[in-house]
C-alpha cells in the first residue's frame, strides 16, 4: 500500500489525518497510547487538542430519510453531530456490559429500575451499554441511549458531550465500578456512595481496621506475596483457609485448603503471584451458615430490604448457593446482630444507595465476610420477595431523596408472610465431563425463584423451576463422605424413608445406614464390577442421587455418577443441607401438590388456589 512510505520516517509527529484515520478504523486511545508509548490520559488530551473528537449519529431505521424522534446514538469519527444536548437535569447510568458468569441480567434489572426511578423524579436519563440482549438498551427505556463500549474513553466522551449532574456506577455490576476511580480522576461526579467508601470496603487493610473499630467480628485474614509467605500466613491464620488471587473478582480461581501442602499446590498451579498481585488468605469457617443482606442507606437511615439464608453450607459461592428469605435457622439474637452490623457498616461507609453484606454464623457468632456498597446479584430476588423496589429506592436516594420522605424508613421485611427460595441453574449439560460439584468459584448462569406459603413448597417449586423436579417415590442412591456419616445424615434418610423412598448405596454408606436400622441395598462402585451404580442410573432405577463429595480417591466415581444423573435428568444433590430441604419439598408436594399464586395476590395477601 502506498501510505507505507510514511513508516520510514519515525520522527513525524502525529498528524490530524493520521489520528483521524486511526479513530475511524476503531483504534482506542489505549491502543494508540500503547503504540506511541504514551498514556491513555495524555493521548486523550492530545487527541482533543488536535481536534479529533467523536460525533454521535442516530439509529433511525431509515438511513436519515425521515426525521428520527428517538434518541438512540452511537459514536463515530465523522462530520455533524446528531445528538442534541438538552438543558434538562440529566444523569448517566452505566450498564453492565456483556453477560458473563457472575454478572448477568440482575444488573440490567437494577439499571432499568434506576432509569424508571429517575424518570419519576423528573430527571433525564441517559443509558450507556453495549449488550444487545438487554432491556436497558431498548430505546424505549431511557430518554437517551448510547450504544457504546463501557470503557473510560467512551464514557468520558459522552460525559463531555452531555454534561450531566453525575454518573451512577453502582447498578451495572463490576463493569462500571472498574472505571469509577478513573472517571473521578477525570473530574466526573459519581452519584451515590463516594469512591472513598467503596475503597474502604474493598481494601482489606482499611476494611479490617474499620471492623476492629466497630468491634464487628470477621474471620482471620492475611495477604501473601510469595509461595513460602503464603504457607506461613495460612499457618498463622489456621486451617482451613480460603485462598484466592487479589486481582480477580467474582470468586475466580478460589480454593479451600486444609493444610500447608494444599496451599503450596494451589500457589504452584493456580496463581501467578507477585508483589503487585498478592494472594488473599482468609480463615474458612467450616460448617458455618451464610447470610446475605441487601439494604439501602440514605446517609441517615438504613432500610433493610431482606435477609437471605443460604441453604448450602459455607464454602459454596453465594451466586451458586440456593437461599431462602426470610432466614429459617437463626436465633432472634443473631438476626438482631445482622441488623445492627448492617446499619453500622452502612453508616460508617457513608453509603448512599444500595449495600450488600455477606455474613457467616458459627457457634452463635455472626461474622462479616464481605461488604459491597453497590447493587448485588440478589436485589431483584429480594425486591420480588418482599414487594419493595429496592433499586428504584436506591436511585432516588442517590439524587437526594430520603428513606423517610419516600415512606419506606420503617419497612419490616419480617412482616412478609410467604417464603421465597432462589435456586441457581448450571450449564453443566453443555460442558461434558467438567466437575459437577459446587465450590467457591461461581459457575451458575441463571436462577429461578419459588414462592409459597410453606418452606417445603417453595423449595419444591424452585427445584422444579430449575429443571430438577423432585421425585415423590422410588429409589434414592445415597453416598456420603466419612465426616457426613453422622446423625444429620440419618435424620435425613429417615425423612425420605417416612415418605416411602427406599435406598441403595455403595458399601460404606450402605453399612452405615443398615447399622442404624435403615434398610439399604448395596451396589458396586463404578470400578468394582457390574451392574454398578452408573448402570442403575442409566436404567432409570434411581430417582434421586444424594452424593456429598468424597475427595480425590473417588473422584472418578463421582464424575461418572454426576454425569449419568445429568444425562438421565435425575435430581442430583451434593450437600446434606440441600438434601434436608428437599425432604421438606417432597413432603409438601406429596401432601398439597403445587399451588399457583400471582405476585399481585401475594402483595394483597390473597391466599393461593390449588
Amino acid at each position: 500500500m502506498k501510505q507505507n512510505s510514511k513508516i520510514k520516517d519515525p520522527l513525524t509527529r502525529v498528524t490530524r489525518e493520521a489520528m483521524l484515520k486511526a479513530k475511524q478504523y476503531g483504534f482506542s486511545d489505549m491502543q494508540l497510547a500503547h503504540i506511541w508509548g504514551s498514556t491513555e490520559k495524555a493521548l486523550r488530551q492530545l487527541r482533543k487538542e488536535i481536534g479529533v473528537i467523536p460525533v454521535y449519529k442516530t439509529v433511525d431505521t431509515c438511513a436519515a430519510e425521515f426525521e428520527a424522534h428517538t434518541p438512540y446514538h452511537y459514536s463515530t469519527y465523522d462530520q455533524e453531530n446528531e445528538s442534541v444536548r438538552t438543558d434538562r437535569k440529566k444523569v448517566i447510568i452505566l450498564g453492565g456490559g456483556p453477560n458473563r458468569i457472575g454478572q448477568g441480567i440482575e444488573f440490567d434489572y437494577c439499571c432499568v429500575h434506576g432509569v424508571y426511578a429517575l424518570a419519576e423524579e423528573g430527571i433525564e436519563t441517559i443509558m450507556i451499554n453495549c449488550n444487545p440482549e438487554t432491556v436497558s438498551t431498548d430505546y424505549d427505556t431511557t430518554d437517551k441511549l448510547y450504544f457504546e463500549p463501557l470503557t473510560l474513553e467512551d464514557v468520558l466522551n459522552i460525559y463531555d458531550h452531555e454534561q450531566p449532574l453525575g454518573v451512577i456506577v453502582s447498578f451495572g455490576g463490576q463493569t462500571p465500578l472498574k472505571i469509577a476511580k478513573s472517571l473521578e480522576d477525570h473530574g466526573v461526579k459519581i452519584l451515590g456512595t463516594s469512591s472513598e467508601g467503596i475503597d474502604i470496603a474493598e481494601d482489606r487493610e482499611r476494611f479490617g481496621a474499620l471492623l476492629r473499630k466497630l468491634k464487628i467480628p470477621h474471620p482471620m485474614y492475611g495477604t501473601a506475596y510469595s509461595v513460602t509467605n503464603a504457607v506461613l500466613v495460612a499457618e498463622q491464620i489456621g486451617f482451613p483457609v480460603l485462598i484466592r488471587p487479589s486481582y480477580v473478582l467474582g470468586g475466580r480461581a478460589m480454593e479451600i485448603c486444609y493444610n500447608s501442602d494444599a496451599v503450596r499446590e494451589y500457589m504452584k498451579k493456580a496463581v501467578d503471584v507477585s508483589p503487585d498481585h498478592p494472594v488473599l488468605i482468609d480463615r474458612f469457617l467450616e460448617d458455618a451458615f451464610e447470610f446475605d443482606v441487601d439494604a439501602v442507606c440514605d446517609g441517615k437511615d438504613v432500610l433493610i430490604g431482606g435477609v437471605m439464608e443460604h441453604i448450602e453450607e459455607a464454602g459454596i459461592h453465594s451466586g451458586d448457593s440456593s437461599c431462602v428469605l426470610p432466614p429459617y435457622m437463626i436465633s432472634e439474637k443473631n438476626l438482631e446482630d445482622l441488623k445492627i452490623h448492617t446499619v453500622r457498616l452502612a453508616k460508617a461507609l457513608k453509603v448512599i444507595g444500595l449495600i450488600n453484606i455477606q455474613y457467616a454464623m458459627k457457634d452463635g457468632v455472626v461474622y462479616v465476610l464481605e461488604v459491597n456498597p453497590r447493587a448485588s446479584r440478589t436485589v431483584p430476588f429480594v425486591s420480588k420477595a418482599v414487594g419493595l423496589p429496592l433499586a428504584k429506592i436506591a436511585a432516588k436516594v442517590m439524587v437526594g431523596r430520603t428513606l423517610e420522605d419516600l415512606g419506606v424508613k420503617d419497612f419490616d421485611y419480617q412482616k412478609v408472610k410467604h417464603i421465597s427460595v432462589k435456586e441457581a441453574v448450571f450449564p453443566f449439560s453443555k460442558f461434558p465431563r467438567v466437575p459437577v460439584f459446587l465450590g467457591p468459584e461461581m459457575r451458575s448462569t441463571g436462577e429461578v425463584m419459588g414462592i409459597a406459603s410453606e418452606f417445603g413448597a417453595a423449595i419444591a417449586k424452585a427445584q422444579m423451576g430449575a429443571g430438577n423436579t423432585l421425585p415423590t417415590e422410588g429409589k434414592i442412591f445415597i453416598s456420603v463422605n466419612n465426616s457426613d456419616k453422622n446423625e444429620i445424615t440419618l435424620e435425613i434418610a429417615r425423612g425420605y424413608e417416612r415418605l416411602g423412598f427406599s435406598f441403595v448405596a455403595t458399601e460404606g454408606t450402605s453399612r452405615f445406614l443398615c447399622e442404624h436400622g435403615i434398610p439399604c441395598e448395596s451396589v458396586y462402585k463404578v470400578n468394582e464390577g457390574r451392574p454398578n451404580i452408573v448402570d442403575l442410573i442409566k436404567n432409570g432405577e434411581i430417582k434421586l442421587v444424594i452424593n456429598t463429595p468424597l475427595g480425590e480417591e473417588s473422584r472418578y466415581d463421582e464424575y461418572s455418577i454426576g454425569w449419568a444423573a445429568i444425562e438421565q435428568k435425575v435430581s442430583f444433590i451434593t450437600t446434606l443441607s440441600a438434601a434436608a430441604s428437599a425432604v421438606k419439598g417432597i413432603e409438601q408436594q406429596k401432601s398439597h401438590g403445587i399451588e399457583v399464586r400471582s405476585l399481585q395476590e401475594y402483595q394483597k395477601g390473597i391466599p393461593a388456589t390449588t
Partner: protein
Amino acid sequence: MPKRTDIKSILIIGSGPIVIGQACEFDYSGTQACKVLREEGYRVILINSNPATIMTDPELADATYVEPITPAVVEKILEKERPDAILPTMGGQTALNIAVALADSGVLEKYGIELIGAKLEAIKKAEDRELFQDAMNQIGLESPRGRFIHTMEEALEVAEEIGLPIIIRPSFTLGGTGGGTAYNLHEFREKVEHGLTSSPIRQVLVEESVIGWKEYELEVMRDLRDNVVIICSIENFDPMGVHTGDSITVAPAQTLTDKEYQVMRDAAIKIIRQIGVETGGSNIQFAINPVDGRMIVIEMNPRVSRSSALASKATGFPIAKIAAKLAVGYTLDEIPNDITKETPASFEPTIDYCVVKIPRWDFEKFKGVDDTLGVQMKSVGEAMAIGRTFKEAFQKALRSLEQGRFGLGADGKDVFDIRNLPEGKRDEIKKKVMDRLKMPKPNNVFYMRYAFQLGVSIDELFRVTKVDPWFLYNIKQIVDCEEELYGYTV
C-alpha cells in the same frame, strides 16, 4: 385490520432461568410484549420463574406468576385465569415447547384457548426436520440432504446418496456427544456405530456437511394480510460449523451481491408463507457454498430469537413489540414506526452503518472443557458495537467485551510481539499461529492479526479459516493501519 376484540386476556410465557443459548434477550422481548398488549387494553397474564427479569415486575402485567414453567403448572394457571389466548413466541424455545405440549395434550382445547403469534401447525412444520425438508422441497428450496437412521445399512444408503464428508449427529445426547464429521467411509462406519451406541434411542441424523460454507440469517415479519417485510440481514463472520450464538456476526450482510441478496430475500418470503407463520417474526438461516454459490436453507425459528434482539438493536425496529401487535390482528401498514413517527412498520429498515456482535465465553470457569467452537453454543454473553465501517464497529466490539482488550491487539496484552520478533523465531511462531487457526476457537481474530503481521496472505488465511476474504481484507487493513501508526510519534 383493526385489533381483535374477541380476545380479552392473553398469557405470555417467559423463558425461565438464564442458560447458555437462552439469555436475557427474552426478557427484552417479553417486556416489550407485556407493555404493548396492556397498552392495547388486554389483560396480560405472565409466567416466568426467573426473578431477575424486568418482565416479572408486578407493574408490567395484570397477573404475574413467578412459578416453574412446566406444562402442569401452566395448566393450573390457565385453569385459574382462563385467558382467551397464549402468546408463546416471546419466551424462546422454552415457551414454544410448553405451548406445543399443552396443545398436544388437549389442554388448550379443554379451556378453549387459542395460540396467537404462531399456530401449532406452523410450529411443527418449522421444528420437525422431515416436515421442514418437505416444505422446502415443495417451494423448490434445498435444505441439507440427509435423514434419521437407525441401522448401519440405512446409514450406508444415505452415504451413497449424498457423498462424504458427512455429519453424524446422535439424537438426544448431551453436548453433541458421540457426533462428528466423517471424511472417509471407514471413519463414517466408526462414527455411525459410536453414534448409535451413544444415542439412548439408537437414532442418528446423517447429514450432508456444509462446514465452511458462508452463513446468513434474515429476520422476517408477516401479518394477516400476507404483507412480508425483511427487517435485517445478518452475516456470520465465522463460517458454518460454528453455532450462530458463538459466531461473530455482522449486520447488514456485507459480502453478498445485490442479486444474491435478492434471491435470499425472495426465498425468505416464500419460506415464511410456506411454513405458515401468519403473524409475527421469524428467523431464517441460510448457508451459501463459497465455491459455487449454491444456497440451502438451514432452519427457521417461528418465534422471536436471540438474533431478533440483535436485529432490533441493530436497526431500531422493535421486532418483539411489532410481533405482539401483529399477533392481536394489526397489520404492518397500520403500526406506526416509533422512531420516525411518519413511516409505518411496513417500511423495511435501512442501515447506513455497520453493526458487529462478538460473543463472550467463560471457559476458565470450567476446568478441562474443550474450548473449540462447534454446533453447540458455548458462549455466555455478547457485546454489540455500531460504527460507520466494519473496521470501526469490530474494534469497538472487541473493547466492549471487557476481557482486558482494547481493540484488535496493540494494547499491551498480545501473546506474541510479532514486530519485535527475532528473525529466527518467525517460522516457529508462524506455525503456531496457523495451527491455532485451523480450529475455530475464541480469540482467533487476534491470531489472524498475528498471521497478517507475519506476512500471511489473505488467500492463505482464507484456505485455513474459511472466513470470507472481505472480512480478512478488513482485518488486514486494521493491521496495516497499525503499522503506519508506528511511523509517527507523539
